[in-house]
């Protein structure tokens, strides 16, 4: 592969408008249009076959973007990216509206996983994995949470013990979306139990489908089987697949969390059509509520009208808040911890949407005919997921009060003592 010199690259950097024109015409010629009824969200009722078909399609679409010079906009060219800027990504997000693209495999592959590899990976690791990610050959997952505790990430108990040029890993990870079809996991593990908890962690790149890793699919209360738990037994990992220093995993982990938090604010590594939102608060929500209320004959009910308008208003507020906070973080007016504000708002907003949907749908939310909108009742039943997944809203409130407002920290019992001596939950499962 021949790469131009840095100076030439800078001189040649495509200006944003030219890039936009190129993206527009390439997309028009090459990319299929999106199916407007598709959700872009696997937490829906799909058969496994449908899901695997879609994942394969996502890989193809990613490969098309790569071949078209539209993958990895902000990734350096030596790793297969375009070496452009966040402004170019914004333009791509605008141009790609209405096209099919690998929506389901953006996160966590491009951020936080790829972002962490770019930041901490060795030259060799980057050349091995980044181009593969950009071509759709590698889909990554986060091996982060453990059954012993979700929010206390640094309390990981999955253990890797050094054995010559290898490590031997044992333990369990949980809440990995789609681990059953993904390729690699970014894994936080304990490599030293005799030092305080933040000082005995290391990060590894882990091939998911290999002997010793059993992927178990968790059935959620709404029937979704998207989340997984992995049981890791005597898995041997070459030391070359360690990212960052031995026992220095929390340095990586801190940035990893940072990159994870950028997801809601629109990471420059992630392609997301302008205006597309995450979670149940999607653009169609209000129109769908209007349809449901009309079917039920409740659309002229003032309270129903107000609730629908209110939830739509809250969505607009959420969008405004996301760009407001993101801008303030960028200008250093707020610390990056303020991303917790977006997370708290998003969780509470999603919960409110589920409740409003439930109220608007009335009886049909709890008992429905096959052609009806049954998922409204189910959305309500699994409502709290929005305040749990990706860090609970209680944790966000701690972060906002302590890290943004400077209020006193909660007391912990795990500082300055060997992790081995830290009180822990009794193991279950």
């Amino acid at each position, binding site marked *: 592969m021949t790469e131009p010199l840095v100076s030439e690259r800078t001189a040649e950097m495509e200006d944003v408008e030219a890039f936009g024109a190129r993206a527009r015409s390439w997309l028009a010629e090459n990319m299929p249009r999106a199916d407007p009824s598709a959700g872009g969200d696997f937490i829906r009722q799909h058969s496994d076959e449908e899901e695997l078909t879609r994942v394969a399609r996502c890989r193809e679409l990613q490969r098309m973007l790569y071949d078209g010079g539209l993958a990895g906009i902000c990734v350096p060219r030596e790793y297969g990216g375009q070496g452009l800027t966040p402004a170019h990504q914004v333009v791509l997000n605008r141009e790609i509206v209405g096209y099919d693209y690998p929506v389901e495999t953006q996160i966590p592959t491009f951020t936080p996983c790829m972002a962490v590899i770019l930041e901490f990976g060795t030259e060799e690791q980057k050349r091995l994995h980044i181009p593969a990610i950009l071509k759709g050959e590698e889909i990554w997952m986060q091996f982060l949470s453990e059954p012993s505790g979700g929010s206390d990430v640094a309390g990981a108990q999955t253990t890797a013990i050094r054995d010559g040029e290898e490590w031997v890993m044992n333990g369990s990870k949980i809440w990995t979306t789609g681990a059953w079809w993904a390729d690699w996991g970014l894994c936080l593990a304990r490599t030293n139990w005799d030092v305080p908890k933040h000082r005995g962690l290391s990060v590894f790149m882990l091939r998911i489908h290999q002997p010793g890793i059993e992927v178990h699919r968790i059935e959620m209360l709404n029937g979704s089987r998207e989340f997984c738990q992995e049981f890791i037994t005597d898995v041997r990992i070459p030391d070359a697949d360690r990212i960052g220093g031995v026992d220095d995993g929390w340095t990586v982990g801190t940035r990893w969390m940072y990159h994870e938090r950028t997801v809601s604010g629109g990471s420059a590594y992630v392609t997301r059509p302008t205006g597309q939102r995450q979670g149940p608060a999607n653009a169609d929500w209000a129109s769908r509520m209007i349809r449901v209320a009309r079917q039920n004959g409740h659309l002229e009910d003032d309270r129903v009208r107000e609730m629908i308008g209110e939830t739509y208003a809250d969505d*607009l507020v959420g969008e*405004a808040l996301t760009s*407001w906070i993101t801008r303030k973080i960028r200008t250093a007016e707020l610390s990056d911890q303020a991303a917790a504000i977006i997370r708290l708002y998003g969780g509470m907003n999603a919960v409110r949407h589920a409740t409003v949907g439930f109220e608007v749908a009335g009886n049909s939310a709890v008992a429905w005919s096959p052609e009806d909108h049954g998922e409204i009742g189910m959305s309500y039943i699994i409502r709290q997921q929005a305040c749990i997944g990706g860090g609970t809203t209680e944790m966000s409130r701690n972060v906002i009060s302590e890290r943004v407002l400077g209020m006193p920290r909660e007391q912990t019992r795990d500082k300055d003592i060997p992790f081995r001596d830290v009180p822990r939950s009794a193991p279950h499962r």
Partner: protein
Amino acid sequence: MFERSTDQDVFVETTRKFLEAECPSPKLRELGRTDAGFEPDFWRQGAELGWTSLVVPEEKGGGSVSGSPVLDLTLLAWEFGVHAAPGPLSPTNLVAAALGRWGTEEQHDGPLASILAGESIGTWALFEPPPADGLGQVELQAENIEGDIVLTGTKSPVESALQADHILVTARHNGGLSHFLVPKDAAGLTITPLRGIDMTRRFASVRFDDVRVSTDAVVGEVGKGQSAMEWLIDLAVVIELAEMVGAMQWGFDTTLQWSFDRFSFGRPLASYQEIKHRFADMKTWLEASYAIADAAARALEGNADNRSVVVSAGKSYVGRRGGELLQDCVQLHGGIGVTFDHDLHLFLRRATTNIPLYGSPAQHAARVTRSLEAKGDVR
């Protein structure tokens, strides 16, 4: 705080210094006992600082600070909120904006020039007493009689009506809506003061008993005042939002500081997780309120397609959260929070006054739904 340019910085700093000097809280309590709630000289000086001219084009005698008149006005309204400042900020600017946009040359030379100079006060009479108190509902009649126009009906509440020299009236006329600029001394006009919760802002009920005005009083096109009304409502709400966010900021900052200073059981209030989580929620509401207040102002400034939806979303959200945030500030203060001596109520009064005016949160939520129905989907 909203983002500011250098020109805006100078404008805001000057206003802030003036407000800090002129209306410390003892002064606000003193003004609270007066009929007008503000002093004419204070308003004239404010006009010199630019308070009345921001949303009026330069060729009509006004001038924005930055070229973004609506944003300039929100910065000013924020300062009014964070100081619980006295004076007819919203009514005067609404009338000035209306005359600047749709007024005749005579109206520019007379009433507008005088309003811009701070010599006279204007107010907009839009809302009517129940049951005609829907958002944008107008029942006051204007009839064409012998070449003149005769107004009959009641407007209430009208801010600063007793202090105003010019009342802009929205009336049902010629099968649509028309706006008229009525002088305070017009025959048949009865203005009755109302009591209110704000310390310094005054409201009145205005009755029109066959009030006769000439066609010179018309502002804009006769019978085609609907879109002007919608625009003025949007401007009124944008002013309200910025002012509420300012009042919320004062309450939030003061209460946060209080939580650090106040000890119970040997610990500062700020160390209790229950209290911390309340502040985390309030911080989220506050930032979200800033974000949507800013988005609403920009939507109005740029005359965006979904302008009214964004503005109404702002009123729906800030109207719900603003009152709750300040009441929570009272709660976290404990007993002292419900005394007259503590300043918190000045800001609670200011934000609360704005909640129902120019459309309640519920009315604005319904306006959002109406717009979604009309357009299918605004996006």
